[in-house]
């Protein structure tokens, strides 16, 4: 199980750069590793979320050809934060998770922007938000909703089969 998780985290983040262009809509792509880190952190806690976010982010940076460490940092923080929030707040409802993903994507975008500013890689804030961060946040919300609903469906089916007397 742990091996599968590692494979999912590592493979998924590398696959992101290769495969997400195939599901792009008008050049807009979802941040699948962010969705994956958020959902894993909710289920497995802050430590796992932090590690998963770190590995995912680093591999994404490396695969995408950007500054290595930017997404590693932001996703590690997000994974940690969601893990902590998941244990304290009621964030297990899809109605919370989906808008949460939108907000998280925007927060990650802001953090990335800030890091790039600090490390002297300036980017135009307004355009970045308008054409990259907000569209991606909305896309993440939709994809996240689909993933959350699919997972809930699978879980319900599993519970039904496990509950049936043999």
């Amino acid at each position, binding site marked *: 199980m742990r091996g599968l998780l590692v494979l999912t985290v590592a493979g998924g983040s590398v696959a992101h750069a290769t495969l997400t262009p195939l599901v792009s809509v008008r050049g807009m792509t979802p941040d699948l590793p962010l969705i994956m880190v958020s959902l894993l952190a909710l289920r497995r806690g*802050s*430590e796992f979320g932090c590690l998963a976010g770190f590995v995912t982010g680093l591999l994404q940076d490396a695969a995408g050809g950007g500054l*290595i460490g930017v997404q590693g940092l932001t996703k590690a923080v997000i994974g940690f934060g969601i893990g902590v929030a998941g244990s304290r707040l009621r964030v297990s409802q899809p109605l919370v998770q989906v808008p949460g993903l939108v907000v998280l994507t925007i927060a990650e975008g802001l953090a990335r922007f800030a890091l790039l500013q600090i490390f002297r890689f300036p980017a135009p804030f307004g355009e970045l938000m308008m054409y990259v961060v907000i569209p991606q946040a909305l896309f993440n919300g939709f994809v996240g909703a689909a993933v959350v609903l699919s997972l809930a469906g699978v879980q319900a089916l599993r519970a039904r089969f496990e509950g049936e007397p043999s």
Partner: protein
Amino acid sequence: MKIQKFVLLVFLVGICLLLLTLQTRGYGSAAGDLFAIVTTPIQTGLAKASHATFGLWATYLDWKNVRAENRRLREEVQQLRVQALRVSDTDVENRRLRRLLTLQERLPLTTLSGEIIAREWGGWIRSLTVNRGRGDNIPRLSAVISPDGLVGRIVDVRPGASIVQVLTDPASTVGAHVLRTRTPGIVEGDPRGTLRFKFMARDGASIQSGDVLVTAGQGGLFPRGIPIGTVRVIDNRGAALFHYAELTPAVDFARIDEVLLVTGDTQRDVTAYFPKDG
């Protein structure tokens, strides 16, 4: 436990910041190369897999499109064939009717056009049914002709339709003569569906294959000069009184669709209004 978590977070954030600092100060290529060793083969494999999958999908879609297009084109070809057939059919009918109309206008006879609505083609009887009957004042035994020649005579007039005895009917006899030699005789139908010309041996010595036979116009039933057929074979019976010649009918009875019914005076010579070669 909580402190451990925070230590982990701080440690990881620290690594990231260190990496970022190193990269901005020009030491980034080593870290990038290290990651590239791990990520590049995976990316290459995934790209190949995705290309293969999408290539396969594209091939499937192409195949499906080609199939659909093939079906559509087949249907189109079928429709066009039907359309072409209709056009050629209409063209043939048009030409046929035009010939009939031309003949009707030129002939110095009172005629009425009719359409064949049924055919009796067994060996016993050979007849056609025309859509002209008692209401059209068709007299019994009227001659029935086409632009190619004689078809037969009306033997029965019913309300709305008439029965035409065709020349090839075994009971049909028509007085005729050879156009070239004026040799008189009788054209009879026979059970095989062919025509034969019965003539006296002493009169018919000069009849040749290819000679055209026309109606004699002697009995007042058929106008004189309507083509009946051409001599195909002469059956020389030696010293017999009558000789026979097998004829090729001037009219293709199986294919004829429209005819003219001669309803008025039949005492005219109409040889000039038909083709001379039969």
